[in-house]
Each structure stands twice: as C-alpha cells, then as structure tokens.
C-alpha cells in the first residue's frame, strides 16, 4: 500500500462520540502497555522468578514446620512475598515507569494528542492488574508444587485474598503514580521509591516474622497500606491460631478501612501532583 507523493491522506475511520473515543483510547493504551511489558522478556522472567527464588531460599534456610504448629515456614513466607510482590508490580512499577515516560517525553507526546487523559490511567490499571495477577498466580502455583504451600482453605479466605489484592493494588498504584512525580528522573525513581518501600516491608512483616517486630514499630506500620496487605494475606493463608502470637492478630475491618483511605488519599495526591511534562516545564 503506497501513496503517491502529494496525494492527500485519506480518512481511515469515521467520527466517534466522546464515549467511544474514551473506550477506544483506553483499550489502545491497555494493549500497548501489555505489549510493551511482555516484549521486555527478561524483565518479565526475572520479575516473576524473583519471589519464587526468594521463597526457595527462605524455605531452604527455614525448612520444615514452624515450632509448635503444623504450618511450614514456606507458608508464612509466601504471605510476605505476596505482599512484597504486589507492592513491586503496582507501586514500584508505576513509580519507575511513569517517571521514565515523563523523562523521555512519552507523556508529553500523549498529552499532545486528543487522547482523553483518563485513558492513560486505564491503560496503567490494565497492566498492573495483569502483572499483579500473573505474579500472584506464579508464586502460589510454584509455592504449592515446589514448597508445599497450601492455598486458602475456605471460600471466605479466598474472598479475603481477592479483595485484599484488588484494594491493595489500587491503593499502592495510586501512591506509585504520586511518587513518580516526586522523582527527578527515571534513574532516581527506583531508589526514591525503594527506600520507603523496603522500610515498610520490614516494618510490616514481609521479610521478618511479625513476632520479632516491636509493638511500636508494627503499630506505626499500621498507618500505611502495606502492613494491611500483608495482614490480609496472613488471614487468607494461615490458620486462626497464628493470631495468638505477639502482633499476630488480623483485623480485616481496619484493613479495608485503611486501604480505602489510602485509595482516596492516593487518588487526590496523584491527581494533584501528576505532570505530563518534565520537571521545570509548563
């Protein structure tokens, strides 16, 4: 298919309503986000492998069952790694990816088109949803077959598993979008986002059992979403008697409340701080 030089470009589609335009642009964004993600194959393999490898390491260091229980260490660490994985695919990914797109002009280019601006965020939501679901499934399945991790035992535990994942991913994504505006460049975005994330991971019992955290530290972590995500996964995957250890209790009502508050606060923060052009422009 070629065009004679000087020939005017012919129209490709008809005009559309604003709603059609929004749906079309959102689907286009989602498709491109997914394509871009899966085409950086090394990144996909290593991101998915990381929690599985970590679980393998932890399971080999702390093999067997937790003292006085019928639960494997791998089951406990899976809850933490699920929370950490969720934070990586939502919060960390968005903070780094968006600051990169802002720095390399991708955002500016999109802002120059008639794309409804919400469509960009729908695309991000789609890619976070897909990567998060994939990472969770890979960790659960490999954990199950390699390290004897058992799935949530009841339907209500599955329900907790799902809503904690969804609500947690939304809250963490919105905060990630806000943090992307904080970093000056993509190179600084990863350390800027990683420092608070690692601190929160340690305070929330992602890598160390909650029993070894001081009461004050663990209470402080209650201000942030990650602790409640980790607690939700424990509620979904551990037997009830785990609540009896220090810091062991799980309170899903408060978890829903705190995550909900972070969704609203994150949305407000992201909306206020989001920039389509680089720092110092506009």
């Amino acid at each position, binding site marked *: *298919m070629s065009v004679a030089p000087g020939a005017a470009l012919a129209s*490709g589609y008809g*005009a559309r309503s*604003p709603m059609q335009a929004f749906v079309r642009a959102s689907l286009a964004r989602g*498709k491109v986000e997914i394509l*871009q993600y899966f085409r*950086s194959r090394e990144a996909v393999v290593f991101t998915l492998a990381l929690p599985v490898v970590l679980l393998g390491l932890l399971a080999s260091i702390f093999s067997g069952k937790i003292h006085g229980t019928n639960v494997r260490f791998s089951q406990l660490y899976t809850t933490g790694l699920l929370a950490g994985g969720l934070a990586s695919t939502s919060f960390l990914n968005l903070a780094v990816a968006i600051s990169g797109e802002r720095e390399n*002009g991708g955002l500016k280019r999109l802002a120059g*088109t008639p794309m409804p601006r919400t469509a960009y965020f729908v695309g991000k939501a789609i890619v976070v949803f897909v990567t998060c679901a994939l990472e969770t499934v890979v960790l659960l399945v490999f954990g199950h077959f390699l390290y004897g991790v058992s799935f949530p035992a009841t339907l209500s535990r599955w329900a907790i598993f799902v809503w904690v994942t969804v609500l947690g991913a939304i809250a963490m994504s919105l905060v990630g979008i806000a943090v992307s505006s904080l970093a000056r460049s993509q190179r600084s975005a990863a350390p800027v986002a990683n420092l608070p994330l690692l601190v929160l991971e340690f305070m929330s019992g992602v890598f160390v059992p909650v029993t070894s955290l001081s009461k004050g530290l663990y209470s402080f972590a209650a201000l942030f979403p990650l602790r409640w995500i980790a607690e939700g996964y424990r509620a979904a995957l551990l037997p009830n008697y785990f609540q009896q250890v220090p810091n062991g209790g799980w309170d899903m009502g408060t978890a829903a409340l705190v995550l909900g508050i972070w969704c609203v606060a994150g949305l407000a923060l992201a909306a206020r701080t989001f920039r389509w052009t680089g720092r*110092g422009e506009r």
Partner: protein
Amino acid sequence: MLLDMASDLVIEASGLRKSYKATLALDGVDLQMARGEVLSLLGPNGAGKTTTIEILEGYRRRDAGEARVLGEDPQRAGPAWRAKRGIVLQSCEDVVDLTVAECVDHFAQFYPDPARSEDVIAKVGLSAKSGARIRSLSGGQRRRLDVALGIIGRPELLFLDEPTTGFDPQARRQFWEVVRDLAREGTSILLTTHYLDEAEALADRVVVINRGRVVANGAPADLGGRQSAAAVVSWAGPNGPERERTDRPTALVRSLEERFGGEVPGLTVTRPTLEDIYLRLIGEVGGAADEAGMPEGAR
C-alpha cells in the same frame, strides 16, 4: 471581511510574554500565520523559539498576551482542538518495543478522523520498516516515525520543532520532501530550525526571534533587505583574485567581459546568504553571546 481574514489565519498571537523565574523568555512576541503557509521560526538557542511554539501547541501557559490557534485559545482548548493540530516532538523513546506499524496504529486510535496507518508510514518512507521494532531504527528513521505520529490525525496545522537536528545531508533532503509534500496538500506548518538552508528550502516566510522579540519577518529571499543588498562580484585577475561590491552587478560583469575579451576567469556573483543576514540580525541586538543567560525552555 474581517471575519474572512480571521478564519484564514491559523495562528494569531500578539504580545506573548513569558518569564521563567527571573529570566524573561518572551518579551512581547507577535506572530501570524496564514492557512497553508510554511512558516519558519529562527533564532539562537535561548531566543524564545521553543517557548513560543510550546505556548502555541498548548503545552505552556503564557504570562500575558493573546493567542488563538485554529480559532481557539491553546491553553483552554480541548481534545477536539488537539485533533486538528499535530505535533512532532523529539524522538520516541517510550515505546521502543513496539513495531512501527503498531505504534502508528496506536496513535491513530486517539483521533476522530485519522489517516490510514499504512498510508502515513508510506508517506514518511518507512514502509520497508513497518514490521520492525522501533528499538532497531536509526535516528533518521525514528525522526520520520515522529513525523508519522504527528500527521496520523490529518492535522490542519503541524508543529515541527527542530526536525532534522542530527541528520546526515541525505536524510535531511528526504525529510524535506516529506515536509514539502505535506505543504502541497495544504497543511500549515510551523517549523523551528537551526539550519538556515532548511528555512530557505522549506519556508514561505521566516520570522527571526532574538531575546524574546521578533526582529525580522519576511520571505527568505527578502529577509533583512537581502534582495536589494549589494552584490559581490569576484573573479581571477592577472595579479590574483579580485572582488568588488556593487549595486549593479550586471553592468560590472559586462565591463569585465570586455576587459577580458570573452570568458571572465573564476567569475562569481553573490548576494548575502540568508545566514549572513541572519547573523547580522541577531548580532545587531546582542544575540548569540547571551545564549548561556537564557536557557531555552528553562528546563
């Protein structure tokens, strides 16, 4: 009558002012552009070209002045307006894992009445690379893809900001053909460039900006009285090269012909080049010496 004239202008800007902190970037820029015109904005780095073009594109807010682009105020206009103008930005680094066709198709989805992707790809000369990942394209090819993304929405007005920076001469010539093609179809094109020959080759009219002000405005051939400026006639005399400035070069050449009894060895007749005029224009008001003091766009 007045209304007719207004609708024939795709850009009307007057008294544009913009400061970045203590630095005055635009100090009252007036700019008009007719439908179908190819207008080139020239000026040294930091003169205010990018600030001007970004205000007109809708990326930047002005501090003062009036601007209407395609009949609307660019800092208030919505998606329908954005669909009518195209912007060619610096190269695509964000979607390098897509193929050329995927990328162009993707951007087509945002426009109410886009061109067919394969037509646009053919127009910018990338048909052979249609299935190639953007990562694998050369700099010139990426630039042509940028143009494809700028014109996929079939814009009435196209902004080209330093489109051929870093091109080899052959790639520049090919690129110029693409621009001429668009102009022939009636697309109005606002072009900023560092290359005087580029402005001369493409533009109907040139506006020179220096220190945030318009210092010259005219067809490339007449800019700064270029047409009527004295010509320089030079030739190889018996005792070495000779040259003479004259307002009547034809008469001088005729007298030389008589003196040499035929062919004049090494004869050339030159008027000042656009570059000579340009350098004089920006030199007159301080110009390039101030480059460091006024960062373009204050990034």
